[in-house]
C-alpha cells in the first residue's frame, strides 16, 4: 500500500529557521516543500533548504558504533562502545580529575542535546569545560 505524507519541521542549515515539510513516501524521504504558512519563509526556501533531504539516505552514513582496535576503527555493538567509554572516562577522570575532560557541543544539535551534554559535563563529570563551535 502506498503511503505519502509530510512532516513539518525546521531546516537543518542556517539560523533563519525556515519551516519545511519533509515528504515521506513508504518510509523514505523523497523531497522537501517549503511550508507556505510559516511566517519566516512564507513558502520559500533557499537551495540548501530545498535539498535538505538529500544527504539523509546517503550510503556514507555511519550506521554502527565504531571502536578503535589495533589502530583501526571497527564496528561494534552499542553495549561494547558504551562500556568502553564509561570505563575509560572513569579511569581518566579518577587519575587526572574532572578538568581533564572537555566536551564540544554543536550548534547543529538540538536544544535538548545541548542541554544534556552540558548537564553530563557539569553534573556527571564535574567540570565546566564545555563549548560549542558556534563562533566558527
Amino acid at each position, binding site marked *: *500500500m*502506498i*503511503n*505519502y*505524507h*509530510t512532516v*513539518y519541521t525546521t531546516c537543518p542549515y542556517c539560523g533563519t529557521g525556515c*519551516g519545511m*515539510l519533509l*515528504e515521506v*513516501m*513508504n518510509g523514505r524521504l*523523497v*523531497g522537501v*516543500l*517549503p*511550508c*507556505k*504558512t*510559516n511566517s519566516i*519563509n512564507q*513558502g*520559500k*526556501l*533557499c*537551495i540548501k*533548504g*530545498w535539498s535538505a533531504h538529500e544527504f539523509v539516505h546517503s550510503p556514507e552514513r555511519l550506521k554502527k558504533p565504531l571502536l578503535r582496535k589495533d589502530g583501526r576503527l571497527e564496528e561494534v555493538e552499542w553495549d561494547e562502545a558504551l562500556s568502553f567509554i564509561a570505563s575509560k572516562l572513569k579511569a581518566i577522570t579518577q587519575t587526572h580529575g574532572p578538568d581533564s575532560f572537555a566536551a564540544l557541543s554543536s550548534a547543529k544539535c538540538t536544544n535538548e542535546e545541548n542541554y544534556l551534554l552540558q548537564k553530563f559535563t557539569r553534573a556527571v563529570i564535574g567540570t565546566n569545560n564545555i563549548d560549542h563551535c558556534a563562533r566558527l
Partner: protein
Amino acid sequence: MGSLREAIRKALTAGEVAGVVGLILEEGHPRPHLFTKEAIDELERLVVGDVRYPLAGVLLKIHRSDPEARLGIVARGCDERAVLELDRNEQLNGEGVVIFGIACTQEQANACQCAQPYPSSHLFGERAAPVSDSERFDRLESLSKEERFQYWMDQFGKCIKCYGCRNICPMCFCPDCVLEDNDLIKTGNIPPEVPIFHLVRAFHMAERCVDCGLCEEACPAGIPLRTLYKKMRNVVTTQFGFTPGITKEGKGPLQYLGDGEFGKQEGH
C-alpha cells in the same frame, strides 16, 4: 466541503481509487497528503482553502513510485490543467486519474488573474468568473522595449538560484534539468547567469506552463515569474493556436519537433 469529503470517501471505500491527493490540516498547517482507505478518518482533516501546494506534482511523484495504482486528486483549475499536460507529455495516464474538482473563489481568481479558475469536471463549489486580462502583464507590455529589457534584467539580477521555481512547478518533470547543465549555464554562481537562466526556463515552459503561479509564489527574490511565463503562453497561443492546459486534444507544437518524445529526450 461535506459533499467533497463524501465523494472521496465513497471512491476510496469502493476501491475506485487507491489514494487521493489533497490537503490535510495538521499542527495548524495545511499540507499535501495522500488519503487512503486504510486511514479513512484522516478525511475529517481534509481542507481546501487559500493555501496552494503543487498537488499535481505530488500526484506524479506517487504515480512514479507506484505506476499501477489508480489515483485521485482534489484539483483546482490549475491542478487539472497540470494533469492534462502531464498526460500529454506522457508522464501520467490522465484517464486513470480521478479528478475531484473544486472551484476557486473569486478572490483567488482575481489574485491569480486566472482565465479558468475552475476545473472542467466533477465540480464542488461555485464557479468564479474568469479573469481574462492581466493588468500586471499589460503594464509591462506597455513599456518600451528598452525599459522592459532593463526591468527584467533588474528582476533577474535578484535571483538567488534557489531553484524553487523549478522545484515547485508541477510541469517540471525532466529527469535531468538543463538548468543544472554547466555547459549551458555556468553552475555555482549567485545570481546565475542573467538573463540566460531565466530565459532558458521560460522557453522550456512555453508549451507546458499551465499558469498556476506556484513558481512566483515560491520565488524568494520576488521576481514576477508568472507574468514572464504568461507572455510565453501568449506567444504559443497566438503562433500555434495551442494553450497548455486548455487545448484538449493533440500534441504541443514543440512535441512535433521531437516526434512526441520531446519531454523524454530533452534531459539528454
